[in-house]
């Protein structure tokens, strides 16, 4: 699935004294089946750009298209549907729901799809086994290490079988060894044909041979691609 951004701008607190423009006139194409890394310092607008691509927020102006479908003007209900079926998210702080078990966290995105419980549980368990989490499957997520939490976040992102995986600063809370392990997982997913979009300012990520393309950002603009 080809993602195309055209003249994207994002302004926070528009018209208020604390107005802030996070993204300025960004136009970009993200190719299907490739690993793209958006690189840049903190505050450069990477996460905002990722949110717009993943339909987690709307651009103030500009157009986002997925293949030929224009996403930027769609009502919330349609955006949710696209988000649910097309994108899988791995957040910087993993954003797992505390108090729920590993299994429950992974199954969570599929609840609104009203799937058969047994089938859903089976596919969640397959992911759990694949990512080596079977030992902690029924543990609450707050008991997990950083690496385990990230793998749970990846499983959760994959449960609805999305075409595009979006990871925001996925290695920010991991040591070098775990960061390398993460890139190995990304490589594995790339081989299944998924489009992967990662933001990072970690050399382990953007220097990795797994990454096909690097887009550099600064002050809300793309420097080079």
């Amino acid at each position, binding site marked *: 699935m080809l993602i195309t951004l055209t003249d994207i701008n994002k302004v926070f607190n528009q018209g208020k004294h604390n107005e802030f423009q996070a993204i300025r006139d960004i136009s970009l194409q993200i190719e299907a089946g490739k690993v793209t890394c958006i690189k840049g310092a903190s505050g450069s607008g990477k996460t905002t750009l990722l949110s717009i691509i993943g339909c987690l927020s709307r651009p103030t102006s500009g157009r986002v298209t997925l293949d030929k479908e224009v996403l930027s003007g769609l009502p919330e209900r349609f955006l949710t549907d696209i988000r649910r*079926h097309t994108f899988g998210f791995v957040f910087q702080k993993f954003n797992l729901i505390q108090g729920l078990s590993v299994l429950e966290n992974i199954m969570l*995105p599929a609840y609104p799809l009203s799937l058969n419980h047994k089938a859903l549980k089976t596919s969640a368990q397959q992911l759990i086994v694949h990512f080596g989490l079977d030992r902690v499957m029924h543990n609450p997520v707050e008991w997990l290490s950083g690496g385990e939490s990230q793998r749970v976040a990846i499983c959760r992102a994959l449960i609805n079988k999305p075409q595009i995986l979006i990871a925001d600063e996925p290695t920010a809370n991991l040591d070098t060894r775990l960061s390398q392990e993460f890139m190995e997982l990304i490589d594995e997913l790339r081989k299944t044909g998924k489009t992967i979009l990662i933001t990072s300012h970690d050399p382990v990520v953007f220097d990795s041979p797994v990454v096909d393309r690097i887009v550099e950002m600064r002050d809300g603009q793309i420097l080079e691609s």
Partner: protein
Amino acid sequence: MDFIRKQAYLIDFTLSSLLRRKGKNLGLLLVYTLIVFLLASVMLFTHALRKEASIILQQSPEIIVQRLVAGRHALIPADYLEKIGQLRGVVSKRGRLWGYFYNPSVKANYTVMAPEHLELTTTEVVIGAGVARALGVGVGDYFTLRSDDGNTYSFQIKELLDEDSELVSSDLVLISEKAYRVITGIPEGQFTDIILSVRNPREVRKVAEKLTEKLPDIRPILREEILRTYDSIFSWRQGIVFVLLFGALMAFVIFAWDKASGLSAEEKREIGILKAVGWESGDVLRMKFWEGMIISLSAFMLGYLAAYLHVFYSSAVLFEPVLKGWATLYPQFRLTPFIDGLQLATLFFFTIFPYVVATIIPIWRASVTDPDAIMR
């Protein structure tokens, strides 16, 4: 099928969500249940009392005739019986003797009557259960009344009045007519009042009108008026209790509003995560709706059940001094369970609806915001 499965998933998540905040939700449930319990107790109790009183009073006379002298209740001469008997529609008439006796040792008034249908000698007495409890006496024991001139009269207790009618008979003392006249000094040919029954119950008011026309110094009191008086007494008492509970109710409303409207950062973040992973605003709203319903319905059912047990099985021990009886000798009785559908619906509406609305509005506000904005 999909709809049911989806609701099942949402309820499942809601339950685990409630369990994750055990302390907070249990505290809320407890306070909520207590409020429902207090309100439901008052409602159930006063309604059951009204119903009970109306059933018992169905057997009371249709018209009571009193004589007034200078606006005060006076003895009524026996020849009034004949005058009243000439009126069409009156089928039976009887003079009654009754009054109040204060017993300083138990600090209570007895209602003393001379019954018509009970054969009593001048030394026998039948007493209400409240009197028996207050004095600690039973059948065969002796009971004393003191007359206005200072003489004391002893009676042997022949029987105790049936506990089923205790609501109105708790403080009752029944003695023979002869003994009553001796103790009170009321001469033969005089009564306290006269009771009448009429042929056609729909003509009671008409008969009462004719009575006042014929005998201007009398006051007819209708059974329906007595029922209305009881009704207003219980309504008034219910109102007093509600006023007393108002403070507690308001405290709960503020507490619930604060709990429901002030979403914590953690709750907001959770909504953001759910939306980011593909939940619709509607799913989040439905989930929170179930959360509100589970808490409020559980509190409602627990509170109502506790109130039911409190009123009908422990005789409303908490509200006894305020709501029960009209003498110091509080009646003890088991009320027949009566549940008024309208009252139940009112209580349901005023306890569940505000809470669910208070819960839904802030959630709705959060759930229609972009997930990115909520998580930030």
